């Protein structure tokens, strides 16, 4: 059972984001493993263990040869990684990103399952996993809250508006997992040491057989026409609760005629 996990390396979400002059996200600082992807990594490790063998390969596209997020996932137990860090990919939109990731999956070879998060913490387009599925010509099941392998199929509880659907897809397939689907392990000291020597295959878009026009800004085919601060909502009144807080809420609701 060979599993590929798409892992995005993102600016620390605790630090307020900013835009470059060309309106792309500033990714110049240190990048970390997107927490959303730690669930996919954990899921992959559990599925491979349950299958009794196989490899977990990470694929990531990130600027500046960034590997810190990959090292975190390798320290959790993934076996190896493919990293695309190519200036030609700068400004890539969701579709171009998916093209790069799909090529990485092909490069990994012999893959049974691709895992990703339902959406990234910084971009949250939420389309990359299904785009990768379509590019590979594989079925995809998004919004998984439970995943299990049954022979040559994957069975998924897929979140829906009303509850969940039990969905089955033949392998190879792409599955995107929701936060909280499994409890990601903390890397052990041994894991962290071992991660330093695990292979990271660094490739360019051209190595993957992608034309520069398909990725990066030229591939994105969109133009940012305006960027501005959102009008702030005015804060209203704030009271320290001195025992009359509940009364103030009731008065407020009465004035709005909702009680």
């Amino acid at each position, binding site marked *: 059972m060979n599993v590929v996990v798409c892992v995005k390396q993102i600016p620390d979400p605790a630090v307020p984001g900013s835009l470059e002059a060309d309106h792309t996200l500033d990714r110049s600082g240190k990048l970390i493993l997107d927490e959303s992807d730690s669930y996919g990594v954990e899921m992959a490790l559990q599925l491979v263990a349950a299958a009794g063998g196989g490899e977990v390969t990470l694929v990531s596209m990130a600027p500046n040869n960034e590997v810190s997020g990959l090292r975190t996932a390798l320290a959790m137990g993934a076996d190896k990684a493919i990293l695309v860090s190519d200036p030609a990919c700068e400004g890539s939109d969701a579709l171009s990103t998916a093209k790069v990731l799909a090529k990485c999956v092909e490069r990994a070879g012999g893959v049974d399952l691709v895992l990703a998060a339902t959406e990234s913490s910084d971009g949250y*387009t939420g389309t990359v996993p299904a785009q990768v599925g379509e590019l590979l010509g594989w079925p995809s099941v998004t919004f998984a809250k439970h995943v299990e392998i049954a022979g040559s199929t994957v069975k998924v509880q897929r979140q829906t508006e009303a509850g969940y659907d039990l969905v089955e897809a033949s392998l190879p397939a792409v599955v995107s997992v929701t936060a909280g689907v499994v409890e990601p392990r903390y890397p052990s000291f041994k894991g962290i040491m071992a991660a330093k020597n695990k292979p990271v295959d660094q490739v360019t878009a051209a190595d993957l057989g992608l034309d520069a026009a398909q990725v990066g800004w030229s591939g994105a085919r969109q133009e940012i026409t305006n960027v501005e601060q959102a009008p702030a909502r005015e804060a209203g009144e704030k009271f320290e609760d001195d025992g009359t807080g509940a009364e103030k809420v009731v008065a407020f609701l009465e004035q709005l005629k909702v009680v």
Partner: protein
Amino acid sequence: MRIWVFAEAAGGKVTTATLELLTKAREIGDTVEAIYAGSDAVDAVAASVGSHGATKLFVIDPGDGLPGQVAAAGIAQLAAEHSPDAILFAQTYDGRDAIARLSVKLDRPVLTNGMSLSGDGGLTFGTAIFGGVTLVDAKLTGGGPALIAMRPKSFAAEDAGGGAAEIVKVAAVDAGRAAEAKVLERHVEEQQGPKLEEASIVVSGGRGIGAAENYGPLVEELAKLLKGAWGASRAIVDAGWVPYALQVGQTGKTVKPKVYIALGISGATQHLVGMKNSDNIVAVNKDGEAPIFSVADLGIVGDVHKVVPQLIELLKSKQ
């Protein structure tokens, strides 16, 4: 402009998010048509999308496949034939599947998480980034249909009073291996009370309520007394205190009630983006510096375990 809307239905009724898209589409476009991937309630869907401005309803039968994946193959065929200028999707489970797969089939980029749309000088799409603090407008360049996903509640849905849309059945579509993903069973979790997205009062609880067992007596109880719906922050959804369906925010539902009451919620940007367009916001939080107070019309700096039971008593005594 010819605009298509990916229509979704639940329980035999067209979703409000679809009707919102149709309302916007008829403001911007000359021709509005809808696509529905489903086999039940087709007549009801045609009537409803028709009264919101669609003249045609293309119907794709997904069988037991995932509707979004099968729809993408069908829409790609239709688009080659009819050349729409834009195809609008709601940012929902199936809407995201459909737009993602279609973007590959048509080799067109997608714009997602949209919050505004206008037709002046081509199609301009607006979204908010960094949890809603920065607004960005974008335009797609190059030919082919613009593929756009909008967050629910970005527009108001208005009935235009038109007749039913003409039903056009699409012959069997070949979705390739994507059709190998099959829905085996559907589990519907019974939901009591009004729908979160439609209620005029929403009471949400966050980590500050302290424990899972406090959700019922504090959050649900207050919501029921106010005839409202109850929601949650992601912190308590991830902790397993309440189901995901109750989550409000960037990765959950967008709500816009007359009154939103936040109990023990800090007000992270990802939560605010799902509720800050509510008409009125009330917050109870013991930390006076909590960011939720920067959007609250009425803020009570206090303990939910004191304030909420008192509030419930007061409301009961008034009934």
